[in-house]
């Protein structure tokens, strides 16, 4: 057993932190407030090989794994510049295309994902399916000489469609009256028949959300990723990475907020000592620190399991749960520590609350994780 981080990992953290520091937390905060994508940071990290760090080397990636991608998520968030789309473009879309894509799909899409030049976002959520993927109704069927597909249906809350070249869409390829068999398609974000309607959310994020209407959107056969009908299994290849990188991002947010809070609590004096001397302040921060670091351990373990092709579902779920809860305790304690300043735009804390709050719901909500652990880890009966 060895918990020491190797030299390359330390160097990777230092480099990512330095690149993010060139932009600074205010850059993130102002982009979140104005809902403008943080493209410049994405490109800078891409130029240095950190966006596609987990993708295969022969397609321009770093040839590393999820451990390293999770470090990128963690470290960028810990500098106050979290990147939500790493969870979808690098973690899900990248992993799914690298694992199940054909040679030509990999050649076509991965190099641009790896360099940070383009993004592929991920669309699974539907208004009438929600957490229940078995109910997905977006339907794809073969048309023409069976050499192309037509997709119809609706997705919502899809992040970053405005920044993406394409969308990895999860669609049902079995008839509505049969058991759901899912398939994955890469759909251009400007495909004819696809309409993208902004879906305003009140948490401040640089990444925008959209409702997507697919009205007989035609895609050629080479846009089907992997095996027709095998989508459940394939999506799983991407969902664990999404949860693990999501956990990494939450750990980073937690660290960033606690660092800010500790700085503030060391200098802010309202009675005779800095407020950090009051246990009402320090204990909340200390408790959150413990939660964040515990979550970090499980996150690293989950990433390591995934990279070593061991079952990672349980650890990934636990990490995602623990990290989102820890990030929320951390940001809440940090805001409380700042008093009124905690809500001030100038102090920039509230956007991190919004992001952490979102990550208790997405990519998988807290309750679905508790269901998973109750059922699979504890052997309790399924409740739904």
């Amino acid at each position: 057993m060895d918990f020491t981080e190797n030299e390359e990992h330390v160097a990777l953290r230092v480099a990512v932190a330095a690149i993010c520091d060139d932009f600074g937390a205010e850059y993130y905060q102002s982009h979140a407030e104005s809902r403008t994508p943080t493209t410049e940071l994405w490109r800078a990290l891409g130029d240095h090989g950190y966006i596609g760090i987990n993708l295969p080397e022969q397609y321009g990636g770093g040839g590393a794994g999820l451990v390293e991608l999770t470090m990128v998520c963690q470290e960028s968030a810990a500098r106050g510049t979290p990147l939500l789309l790493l969870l979808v473009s690098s973690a899900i879309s990248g992993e799914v295309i690298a694992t199940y894509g054909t040679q030509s799909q990999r050649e076509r899409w991965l190099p641009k994902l790896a360099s940070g030049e383009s993004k592929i976002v991920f669309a699974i959520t539907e208004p009438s399916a929600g957490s229940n993927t078995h109910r997905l109704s977006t339907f794809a069927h073969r048309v023409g000489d069976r050499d192309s597909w037509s997709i119809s249906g609706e997705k919502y809350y899809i992040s970053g469609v405005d920044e993406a070249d394409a969308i990895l869409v999860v669609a049902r390829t079995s008839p509505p009256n049969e058991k759901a068999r899912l398939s994955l398609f890469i759909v251009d974000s400007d495909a004819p028949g696809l309409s993208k309607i902004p879906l305003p959310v009140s948490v401040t994020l640089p990444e925008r959300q959209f409702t997507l209407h697919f009205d007989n959107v035609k895609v050629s056969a080479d846009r089907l990723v992997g095996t027709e009908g095998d989508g459940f299994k394939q999506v799983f290849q991407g969902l664990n990475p999404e949860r693990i990188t999501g956990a990494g991002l939450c750990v980073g947010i937690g660290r960033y907020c606690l660092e800010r809070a500790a700085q503030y609590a060391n200098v802010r004096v309202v009675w005779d000592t800095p407020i950090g001397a009051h246990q009402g302040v320090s204990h909340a921060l200390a408790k959150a620190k413990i939660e964040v670091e515990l979550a970090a351990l499980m996150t690293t373990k989950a990433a390591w399991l995934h990279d070593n092709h061991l079952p990672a579902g349980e650890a990934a779920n636990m990490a995602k749960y623990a990290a989102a809860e820890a990030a929320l305790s951390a940001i809440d304690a940090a805001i409380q520590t700042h008093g009124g300043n905690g809500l001030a735009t100038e102090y920039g804390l509230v956007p991190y609350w919004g992001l952490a709050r979102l990550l208790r719901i997405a990519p998988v909500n807290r309750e679905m994780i508790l269901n998973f652990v109750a059922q699979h880890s504890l052997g309790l009966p399924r409740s739904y």
Partner: protein
Amino acid sequence: MKIAVCVKQIPDPAAPAKMDANYNLARDTKLIMDESDSYGVEMALQLVDKAGAGEVVLFSMAPGEEVSGLRNALAMGAHRAVLISDPRLAGSDALSTAKVLAKAIGRESFDLVLAATESSDGYTGTTPVQIAELLDLPSVTFAKGIEVKGESLIVARQTEAGFDEIEVPTPALVTVTAGVVEPRYPNFKGIMAAKSKPVEKLSIDDLAFSPDSVGASGARETITSIRPAESRGAGTVVVDEGDGFAKIIEYLESLKVI
């Protein structure tokens, strides 16, 4: 173009400094690359890039076989490194350090030796020119820019009044100031490649020094006492009551700045 770059590995300046009994900076902690040297590394990489071919070789004298600072420069793109590490070098002064580095550098021939103007922990600013003297090389200090012109270098040397433009034949030693170039961040490929780049480790025996000519016993400087830097007085707070501008002007005038 073959360039040697002196890279000092120092205790993290962000951590509180510790002194040993002889008033030497304790170097038993983890060392990192002196940020001042990242400019020399970047300059060297750019010059070799422009020349189309060549090699950037790092030279460092550090205790405990420390390589993490060197790995950082290798990750930026330097080709290989030479580390001189020997317990008998503890307590070296600037001249001993220069002797050691000069001897290591002198085993090969370089077109250019680059160093920082001064290190961030010692601040003597004397080691590079002593290296030049020992290697019998011309030296130019405080470079803000370096260009290759045939067999010479055109160096923009920062002075109080502006720049001197100096032409110097190669081989030469040049010290660069912070900000001469923007040091690159290591990319991920660079970090992974740095793992397998050669780091040659030398002792003082390999360089044929007798133990009493270097280290504490060879040092001609001794530190007799140290005291904390005077803390700065509290600043002047100008409260802006609509006349802040006038008060600032008044203050600057009192300093005879304007």
